[in-house]
C-alpha cells in the first residue's frame, strides 16, 4: 500500500517500538527502522529491488489495526504506532521463518545465508514441519550453481533478472505447492537464454543461486574495493580475497553501475591465476629466428630462456639505444595500452617522448574511436562524451546506432533497457538485429556501410519539415548554410532504397529524435570502424547540432568507449599527435610547457599511428623505417587489420620488447618479454566512458617475479638514462594534475575517499562536470561547427569472387583479443570455440547447419569457424568475433584507413564462404 503522492514529499513522524522516529519521504517502515538501527526480519526485500511483500517475515503490529502489516511495503503515516517487537508480531515472524526453514533442505550453512542469519537471531531451531520433495541441483552452468532445495521463493532473483538487468530469463512457474523458479521453459541454466550476469546470484538470500565451484562457503580474509578490468562502463566491484586468490566478486554501488555487473566483471577474474601467467623475464634464445607465422601454441621455453630482471632490462634498453644511435629516434615506436591505468599511460607516453625522443606512441584507441574523436574535435572541440550513460534516465529519446550494447557494454545496456521499459523511446539502428532491438520502439536494420546516406536523409527531413532548432543553430553554431545546401541532395525518398529503410520510417524517426525534450545518441564501433568513420560520426554530431539536442541533462552525444581505460589513456597523451590533455605536439606553446614540466626537449613532429607504424616497419626504403618497438599490454598480432601483413611486419623488427601478463600472440615476435601485473595486482586510476576517474586498488600480489607495470616503466626509463623517481602511483597522478588542466582539481585523496570523480574538474573542490557544452563549445570561437559528410562506400565492396560482407565484432564473454577472457575458465567454457554468425537462409544455401565448419576467405587470408544461425543477420552478411587465435578474424580484414581518424575498416570487407 504505497502512500499517496502527497505523503511522499514529507517526513513522517511516527512511533516504532515505543520510540519516536522520522521516516524520510517515501520510506517504508522497514527502511526507516533500518536507518534507526531497528532490525525487522526480512527476506524478499532487498534495497534496489521493487518491494514484493511475498515472504511475510517482516510482519509488524500497527496500533488500532486488526491484522498485521508487512513493514517492507507499508509506509508509516503521522502518529502511527508500530511494534516489530510485540509478542504478536514476534510470534508471527518466527512462524514465518520456521515455515520458510521447512521449505529448504538441511541447515543453511554459509555465513552469508540470510535465512540462516534470521533463524539464528530469532532462535529458530529445527522446524516442526516436514520438508517437502526437493528439485535436483542444476550444475550445468560454468558460472552459476542452482540448488533450488535452498530456495524460499522470495523472487529476488526474478526481479533482479527481469527488472534490473532486463534479461527476462527467470520465471516463476506453475501453481500452489508446485510453484518454483525456472529458466525459460524450465531449461537447464546452461541451455537457457541466461547471459550469466549473476545479478540473481547477488540477489539471492540463500545461495540457492550461487557462484559455481567450492568458493561458495569459503570465508574471505579481506574485501578490496576496486573496478572491473574489462569495458569502458567502469563498474565498481568488491573483490573477496583469501590466500592471494579472488574468491568472489560483488557489484558495488558505483555511479556507473549501481551495484550491477555483467558476466565478465563478476565471473571473469580467474584469468589472474591461469597457469600461463608470465612470471619470469624472458629473452629470445640465440638462433631462434622470427617468422611471420610462428606456432602460437608452441612451448614458450623453446623460443625464450629465462633471464634475471637486470639482464632483461639491460638488453631491452640497449636494443633501443642501439637502434636510436644508428637510425635516429624516428626508427623507434611504442604501443601503450588502454587496459592500463592513467598513470601507466602517462608514464608510457612520457617515456617514448623523452626517452625515445619521438611522438611515435599510440594505442588501441586508434582501432576503436579515433574517427569519432576526429569528428568531435573538429566540430565541437572535445573528444569525450557530453553526458554520462546514466542520463538515459533524464532523456526522452535514446538513439543507439552501430553498438551491440548488450554484449559490449552490458551494464550500460541494462540502464537503456530500464529506460525503455520506463516509457522512454528507444531507437536502435544497426545492420544486425542485436538483443537491444527487442526493447526498441523503432528498430532500423539498415544496409551496412550506408550510415551517411541514412543519417543525411533524416537531417534533410528535419530541414524540409522545419523541425530544426533555429535558435540553437543561430546562436551556437556555424556552417549551417553549407550543410543545408549539401543535404538537399538527400531527401528521405532518395536515400531509402540505398539504406533499405523506408522514407516513412526515416522521417518518423527524425521527427521523434528532434521533437523530444531530451535526446541522447549512443554509438559504437559500427559507426567508427569504417573508411568513412569520421563522416559517420560527423552526421551524428550534425544531427545533435541541428536540433540542439546537446548541452542539457538527458540530451547529448555519447560514443561508448570500449576498453576500461581508453578514455583515460587518450587523455593521458597516449596518442601520437597530442600531449596529455590533447595539447597538440605541433603547437610551440604546448611544447614549451611540456618541455619545462618534463625537463627535456620534445619532438615537434606528430608521430605515426598504429597501422601506420605497422606499415612503416615493412617499408624497407623509408628513411624512417620503424626498427624497434616497446609494446606494453597490447596485442597487435591479433588486433590489427590485415594480420598477414601486420604479423609479417612484427617479425621484421630488429628489436621488440613486450610487457604483458600472458604469452600473447605478439609475445612470439619479441626479443625481450617483461612479466607484468594483472589488474587486481596494482593500484591506479582509470577513466570510464562517462569521464569518471575511478580507483582500482591492489588486492593480490603479482605471481613469481612479475612486477607492477609502473615499476617496470620507471626501471626502463632509468636504463634509458632518465632520472625518474615515482614511489607510488600517487606521485605520477600529482604530476598529471600539473600537466592536465582538466583534471587539476582531482586529488588522490579525494579519489580514495569518493571512489569516483568526474572531469573536467579544474580546481580542487569542484564537483566535476557530468554534462558539458551547456553554454559554449570548447572550440576557438565557442561554437559548434557543422561539417557536411559526403556519402562514400567501403574500401572493398563484395563482387562475384568475394560476394559476402564480413562484419567483425565481439561476443559477450570475450574481451578484445581474448588474452584474458580465453584464459578465464568460466568465460571460455561458455564460448570455447570460434563461431561465425549467418542468416539461417544463407546456411541453407551453403547446405550447412549450426556447428558445421565454414571456410571464410578474403583477399588477405582465410580462417575456419563453426556456423551459428542468427536470424538477426541480414542475408549476405557474416559476423565473426575477433578474439579467437585459431580463427583470427583480422587475418581477413582490410587495412584501409579513414583519412582523418586513421582507423581501419574492421566493419566491412568482402569474403567468400564455403563448407570446410
Amino acid at each position, binding site marked *: 500500500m504505497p502512500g499517496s503522492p502527497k505523503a511522499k514529499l514529507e517526513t513522517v513522524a511516527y512511533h516504532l517500538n515505543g520510540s519516536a522516529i522520522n521516516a524520510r519521504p517515501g520510506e517504508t517502515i522497514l527502511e526507516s527502522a533500518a536507518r534507526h538501527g531497528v532490525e525487522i526480519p526480512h527476506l524478499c526485500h532487498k534495497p534496489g529491488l521493487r518491494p514484493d511483500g511475498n515472504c511475510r517475515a517482516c510482519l509488524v503490529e500497527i496500533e488500532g489495526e486488526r491484522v498485521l502489516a508487512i513493514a517492507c511495503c507499508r509506509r508509516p503515516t503521522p502518529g502511527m504506532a508500530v511494534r516489530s517487537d510485540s509478542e504478536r508480531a514476534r510470534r508471527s515472524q518466527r512462524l514465518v521463518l520456521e515455515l520458510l526453514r521447512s521449505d529448504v533442505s538441511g541447515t543453511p550453512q554459509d555465513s552469508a545465508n540470510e535465512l540462516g542469519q534470521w533463524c539464528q537471531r530469532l532462535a529458530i531451531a529445527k522446524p516442526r514441519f516436514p520438508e517437502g520433495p526437493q528439485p535436483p541441483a542444476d550444475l550445468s552452468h560454468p558460472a552459476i550453481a542452482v540448488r533450488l532445495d535452498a530456495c524460499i521463493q522470495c523472487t529476488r532473483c526474478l526481479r533482479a533478472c*527481469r527488472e534490473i538487468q532486463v534479461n*527476462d*530469463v*527467470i*520465471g*516463476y*512457474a*506453475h*501453481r500452489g505447492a508446485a510453484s518454483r523458479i*525456472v529458466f*525459460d*521453459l*524450465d531449461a537447464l541454466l546452461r541451455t537457457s537464454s541466461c547471459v550469466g550476469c549473476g545479478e540473481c546470484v547477488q540477489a539471492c538470500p540463500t545461495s540457492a543461486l550461487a557462484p559455481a565451484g567450492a568458493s561458495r562457503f569459503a570465508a574471505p580474509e579481506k574485501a578490496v574495493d576496486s573496478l572491473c578490468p574489462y569495458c569502458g562502463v567502469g563498474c565498481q566491484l568488491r573483490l573477496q580475497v583469501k590466500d592471494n586468490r579472488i574468491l568472489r566478486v560483488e557489484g558495488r554501488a558505483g555511479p556507473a553501475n549501481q551495484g550491477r555487473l555483467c558476466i565478465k566483471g563478476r565471473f571473469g577474474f580467474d584469468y589472474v591465476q591461469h597457469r600461463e601467467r608470465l612470471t619470469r623475464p624472458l629473452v629470445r634464445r640465440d638462433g631462434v629466428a622470427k617468422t611471420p607465422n610462428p606456432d602460437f601454441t608452441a612451448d614458450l621455453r623453446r623460443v625464450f630462456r629465462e633471464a634475471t630482471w637486470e639482464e632483461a632490462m639491460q638488453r631491452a634498453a640497449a636494443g633501443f639505444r642501439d637502434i636510436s644511435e644508428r637510425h635516429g629516434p624516428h626508427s623507434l615506436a611504442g604501443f601503450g595500452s588502454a587496459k592500463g591505468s592513467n598513470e601507466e599511460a602517462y608514464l608510457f607516453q612520457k617515456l617514448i617522448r623523452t626517452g625515445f625522443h619521438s611522438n611515435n606512441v599510440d594505442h588501441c584507441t586508434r582501432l576503436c574511436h579515433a574517427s569519432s574523436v576526429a569528428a568531435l574535435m573538429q566540430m565541437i572541440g572535445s573528444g569525450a562524451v557530453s553526458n554520462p550513460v546514466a542520463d538515459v534516465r533524464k532523456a526522452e529519446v535514446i538513439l543507439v546506432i552501430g553498438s551491440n550494447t548488450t554484449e559490449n557494454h552490458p551494464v550500460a545496456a541494462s540502464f537503456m533497457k530500464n529506460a525503455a521499459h520506463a516509457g522512454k523511446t528507444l531507437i536502435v539502428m544497426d545492420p544486425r538485429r542485436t538483443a537491444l*532491438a*527487442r526493447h*526498441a*520502439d*523503432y*528498430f532500423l*536494420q539498415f544496409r551496412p556501410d550506408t550510415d551517411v546516406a541514412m543519417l543525411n536523409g533524416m537531417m534533410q527531413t528535419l530541414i524540409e519539415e522545419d523541425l530544426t532548432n533555429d535558435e540553437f543553430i543561430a546562436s551556437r553554431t556555424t556552417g549551417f548554410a553549407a550543410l543545408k545546401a549539401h543535404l538537399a541532395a538527400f531527401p528521405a525518398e532518395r536515400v531509402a532504397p540505398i539504406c533499405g529503410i523506408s522514407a516513412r520510417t526515416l522521417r518518423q524517426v527524425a521527427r521523434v529524435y528532434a521533437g523530444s525534450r531530451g535526446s541522447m545518441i549512443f554509438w559504437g564501433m559500427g559507426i567508427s570502424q569504417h573508411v568513412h568513420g569520421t563522416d559517420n560520426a560527423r552526421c551524428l554530431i550534425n544531427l545533435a547540432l541541428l536540433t540542439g539536442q546537446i548541452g542539457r541533462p538527458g540530451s547529448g552525444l555519447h560514443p561508448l568507449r570500449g576498453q576500461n581505460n581508453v578514455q583515460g589513456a587518450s587523455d593521458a597523451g597516449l596518442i601520437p599527435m597530442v600531449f596529455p590533455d590533447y595539447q597538440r605536439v605541433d603547437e610551440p606553446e604546448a611544447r614549451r610547457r611540456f618541455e619545462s614540466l618534463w625537463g627535456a626537449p620534445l619532438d615537434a613532429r606528430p608521430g605515426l599511428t598504429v597501422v601506420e607504424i605497422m606499415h612503416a616497419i615493412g617499408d624497407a626504403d623509408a628513411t624512417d623505417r620503424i626498427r624497434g618497438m616497446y609494446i606494453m599490454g597490447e596485442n597487435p598480432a591479433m588486433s590489427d587489420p590485415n594480420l598477414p601483413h601486420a604479423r609479417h611486419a612484427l617479425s621484421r623488427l630488429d628489436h621488440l620488447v613486450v610487457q604483458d601478463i600472458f604469452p600473447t600472440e605478439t609475445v612470439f615476435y619479441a626479443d625481450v618479454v617483461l612479466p607484468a601485473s594483472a589488474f587486481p595486482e596494482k593500484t591506479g586510476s582509470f577513466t570510464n566512458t562517462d569521464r569518471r576517474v575511478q580507483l582500482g586498488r591492489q588486492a593480490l600480489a603479482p605471481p613469481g617475479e612479475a612486477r607492477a607495470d609502473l615499476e617496470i616503466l620507471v626501471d626502463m626509463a632509468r636504463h634509458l638514462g632518465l632520472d625518474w623517481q615515482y614511489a607510488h602511483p600517487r606521485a605520477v597522478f600529482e604530476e598529471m594534475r600539473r600537466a592536465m588542466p582538466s583534471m587539476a582539481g582531482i586529488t588522490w585523496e579525494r579519489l580514495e575517499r569518493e571512489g569516483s570523480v568526474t572531469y573536467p574538474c579544474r580546481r580542487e573542490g569542484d564537483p566535476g562536470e557530468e554534462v558539458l557544452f551547456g553554454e559554449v563549445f570548447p572550440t576557438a570561437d565557442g561554437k559548434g561547427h557543422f561539417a557536411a559528410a559526403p556519402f562514400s562506400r567501403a574500401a572493398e565492396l563484395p563482387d562475384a569472387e568475394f560476394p559476402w560482407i564480413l562484419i567483425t565484432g565481439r561476443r559477450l564473454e570475450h574481451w578484445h583479443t581474448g588474452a584474458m577472457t580465453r584464459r578465464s575458465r568460466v568465460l571460455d567454457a561458455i564460448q570455447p570455440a570460434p563461431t561465425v554468425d549467418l542468416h539461417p537462409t544463407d546456411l541453407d544455401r551453403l547446405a550447412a547447419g549450426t556447428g558445421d565448419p565454414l571456410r571464410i576467405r578474403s583477399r588477405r587470408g582465410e580462417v575456419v569457424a563453426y556456423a551459428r544461425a542468427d536470424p538477426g543477420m541480414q542475408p549476405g552478411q557474416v559476423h565473426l568475433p575477433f578474439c579467437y587465435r585459431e580463427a583470427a578474424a583480422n587475418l581477413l580484414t582490410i587495412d584501409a584507413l579513414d583519412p582523418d581518424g586513421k582507423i581501419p575498416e574492421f566493419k566491412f570487407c568482402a569474403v567468400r564462404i564455403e563448407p570446410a
Partner: protein
Amino acid sequence: MAGSKEQLFTPEIRAEIDQWIAKYPAEWKQSAVMAALRIVQDANGGWLSRELMDDVAGYLEMAPIAVYEVATFYSMYELKPVGKHKICVCTNVSCMINGSDNIVGHLEKKLGVALGGTTSDGKFTLKEVECLGACGGAPMMQIGKQYYENLTPEIVDSILDRLE
C-alpha cells in the same frame, strides 16, 4: 520484434487476437495474453509450442518468460501435444469429497494411462484440473467444451463410448 508483427500468425488469428487487444487500454496489450494463448492453442491442435508462445510474446510486446509463466500457471494450456479428446477431471475440494479419486482411478485403468498421459492411439489425454465452477454437480469432468457432472464409473464409460 519491432517491425515484423505482420509475419506472425495467419490474418484470421491476428484479427481474433486484435479483437481482444481492443478491449484493453492501448498500453496494456498484454492483458490479452490469456485469450491469445487460447486462440493459438486451438488453432494448433490443442497445444502450445515454444515458438507459438514466443510469437504471442512478440505480438503483445511482452517478454517471452512472462508468457511462459501464464502458460504454466493455468491448467488449460498444454505445453505438449495432446490426444484428440482431452479429459479434464476436477479433483478440487468439492469433487474430491464426492469421489473424484474414484473417477480418476477408473479412467486411469480404463485408458491405461496415468494422469497427464495420452493413450498410445492418440485418442485420449487424461488431465487433473482445478475447480471448474461446477461444484454443485461434483464429481465432474470436462471434455472439449462439454461439462459432464454427477459422474459414476458407469456414466464415464457411457460417455467415452459415445466419443469417436
